[in-house]
């Protein structure tokens, strides 16, 4: 048994994913990051919403919580506040995190609460059978855009930078080792972190856009992937069609939410309680 396998709950196998799906790669890279950081499995909780990505927690041999569509971050917020010392991981898909859960995403980023989010971007609603998502590229065909998608997609990194997230990174499922490294790095960050992982859904997105097998689709992802220095050299028009990878924001100065709560709110409230008690004692005399 390899080191990371103790974080895998084999009892719940097989997985529900299509052959060639990127979710398996992500499952493995997260488990590898756990192993390298030597986390105690019972100190971890993996929370997810609904969709193909939502089924990932079942396969971790850690505490796991499968919640409602788009709301995993809200549950994670409650857990992190109640147990600030635990490792709270959220796995979310693009529809989950940016459509139905968009509000929770920007507020978690704004609060800088120490949740580690893995945002799997396959550009489609996979589990429901291939409908357009807020991250589907323009002009792509899906089950609900039979004439091509006219809506522009969100840039997750730009969105989260604007929402003041303190750690933002992007990787792709094509690059397992850099993916594992960046996930590990995000786990070591104290505040809110998001790693956007570009993944392949050849079944539901690829099939309708001339990339019906996983090799075609991962090749397409590879052509879209550029490093940050390469990206900086591109003109604005060319940038629109590329996914730069790497760590974009890493703000270690900003205090994490639960740290702030226990350093600022609780002492202030306790001082107020003491003043109240003194006032009461004064009145009695």
């Amino acid at each position, binding site marked *: 048994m390899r080191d990371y396998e103790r974080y895998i*709950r084999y009892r*719940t196998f097989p997985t529900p994913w299509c052959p060639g799906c990127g979710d398996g790669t992500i499952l493995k890279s997260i488990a590898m990051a756990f192993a390298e950081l030597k986390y105690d499995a019972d100190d971890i*909780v993996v929370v997810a919403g609904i969709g193909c990505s939502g089924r990932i927690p079942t396969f971790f041999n850690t505490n796991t919580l499968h919640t409602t569509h788009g709301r995993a971050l*809200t*549950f994670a*917020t*409650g*857990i992190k*506040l109640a*147990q600030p010392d635990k490792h709270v991981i959220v796995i979310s898909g693009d529809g989950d995190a940016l459509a139905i859960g968009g509000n929770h995403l920007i507020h978690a980023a704004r609060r800088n609460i120490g949740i580690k989010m893995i945002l799997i971007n396959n550009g489609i609603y996979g589990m429901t059978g291939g409908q357009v998502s807020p991250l589907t590229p323009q002009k792509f065909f899906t089950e609900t855009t039979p004439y091509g998608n006219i809506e522009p997609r969100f840039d997750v990194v730009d969105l989260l930078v604007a929402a003041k997230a303190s750690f933002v990174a992007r990787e792709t499922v094509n690059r397992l080792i850099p993916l594992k490294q960046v996930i590990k790095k995000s786990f070591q960050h104290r505040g809110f972190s998001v790693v956007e992982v570009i993944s392949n859904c050849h079944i539901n997105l690829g099939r309708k856009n001339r990339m019906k097998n996983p090799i075609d689709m991962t090749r397409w992802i590879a052509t879209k992937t550029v490093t940050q220095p390469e990206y900086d050299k591109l003109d604005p028009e060319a940038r629109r069609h590329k996914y730069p990878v790497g760590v974009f924001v890493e703000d270690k100065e900003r205090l994490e939410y639960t740290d702030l709560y226990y350093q600022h709110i609780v002492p202030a409230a306790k001082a107020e309680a003491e003043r109240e008690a003194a006032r009461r004692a004064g009145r009695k005399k």
Partner: protein
Amino acid sequence: MIKRQVLQGNIIVAKAAIDAKCDFFAGYPITPSSEIAQYMSRELPKLGKDFIQMEDEIASLGACIGAALSGRKVLTATSGPGFSLMQEHLGMAVMAEIPLVIVNVMRGGPSTGMPTKPSQADIMQARWGTHGDHPIIALYPAFAEQLYFETIRAFNLSEKFWNPVIILLDEVIAKAHEDLTIPRKKDISVYWEKTKKIEDLNIYDRKIGQNPPRVDFFKGYPIHIDGLEHDKHGWPTTDPDTVQKMQTLRMQKIYHYLDEIVKFEEYEMDDAEIMLFSFGVSARSALAAVEMARAEGIRAGLFQALTIWPFPKKALAERFRRVKKVLTVELNMGQAKYEIERVAPDDVDKRALLRANGVPFTPAEVLAAIKEFPR
């Protein structure tokens, strides 16, 4: 020394929650329940505990479930529109069997309705608001002392049955300042069976009718909690036998313990010929009307439901063996009256005093309705 205080209804509930050892509150501002959140934001940090204002009511209940799974006793408070948003996670809490308490200070509806006016129109939403078959407990206090003790009871029931408990409050009661004799610590009994060490995944493994032990994360053995239908290990399943068993388990953990959960108060019921059935602010008007009727020689009595869900069917059925006239008094277009119609036999004269204009009944109005029964 007996300590008395004049307190707002909302504050009585919040105070009782803290006395019931509530140590986590996540909420979103909404009239007329905001005072509960305000009180908790002031008081919980004094105890080193957590308060958070979330981005909406869905998130509030989500955070509450997360905290409840991390060993906390949680409360949230809202009103109609927020309660509508919470239905999604209310279902999740029922499915995953999470103990938590939701206060719904009802206001005029539907939609934004009348934020500052009372209504008793969320009774059916409390029962059937979230989709799917589900057990629910809803309490409905009316007097200051009931507000306090029913809040404590709500926490105890949620802990014991591993189920969300809803406290329904009327806007006028929540906003009114009333005299309360602060109960002493020894007069309160708080049920809280802390999670023992977990040693296996079979957290939902129990017999039908058995009430479950509390299960939390981080108790020595990693567990899985799911909003999907699950088996005894918490793992998703669609196996018909397992699903049917889990549905029955969830329903029966409440319906096996009705005598413990269902609570009501009776006034002048011993020799009553006319029974008033009411709750909340309407019960207060009804009680005054009963006294007025008695003064005039009319033998009226009041049955005040403190537990509205599960409905006090058994107790009412017993009353209907003798009492053949019933008047349901409620501030809505008719909700509890349908439940009364289901319980009362055909020979009972069933009437209802209904209104949904944001104005509570006066005792005189209730008395007039009593007098309409043929003598």
